């Protein structure tokens, strides 16, 4: 079974802190994605990566950055957390363009 893991299920941070969310997949997938999930808005793509050290902006990249130094790991970085970044963050991975995306369990981030 494909496994996508995220470093934390729940995280509480203060405004202005630098926040790292980690995602690891164990199936040698090329593509990795970061989404945020908000009630009524569904999932919105923040960033994605189709190869090591490659990244592309999604629909809502403002306030976020990413890092992919190894194929299996994709990190989302909030340089200076703000309260409007309180959300559920979901990581996903896939192999090839038309294959399904496999999702991690999510990290619920609260910024106070």
């Amino acid at each position: 079974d494909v496994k996508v893991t995220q470093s934390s299920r729940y995280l509480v941070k203060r405004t202005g802190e630098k926040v790292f969310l980690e995602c690891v997949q164990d199936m040698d997938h090329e593509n990795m994605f970061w989404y945020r999930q908000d009630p009524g808005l569904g999932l919105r793509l923040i960033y994605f990566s189709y190869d090591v050290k490659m990244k592309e902006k999604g629909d809502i990249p403002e306030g976020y950055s990413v890092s992919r130094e190894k194929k299996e790991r994709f990190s989302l970085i909030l340089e200076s957390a703000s309260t409007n970044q309180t959300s559920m963050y979901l990581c996903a991975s896939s192999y090839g363009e038309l294959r399904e995306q496999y999702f991690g369990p999510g990290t619920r981030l609260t910024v106070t």
Partner: protein
Amino acid sequence: AQSVTQLDSQVPVFEEAPVELRCNYSSSVSVYLFWYVQYPNQGLQLLLKYLSGSTLVKGINGFEAEFNKSQTSFHLRKPSVHISDTAEYFCAVRPGSNMLTFGGGTRLMVKP
């Protein structure tokens, strides 16, 4: 640009009743269509997908969906729901090789 509209944010239904979750999309190009399910405190899991061929697609857990190109719809159906189907359901669209665009989600609440 494409968009996905899930017409109902919540659908309450009694156990063993049929259910239909509605999804409409807008896109200027041919699309691939997906339904994902999110059980409480879990990530998303693929229910079914339409890439080409028969417009009636069968998925896991007894769900099926029908692609209607003229009405730009991809409604999800199940003839008899169980308590365990209580979850949030997301419709997603993928035009060609572009990234997934998700709808806002529909919360299915199955009552005994």
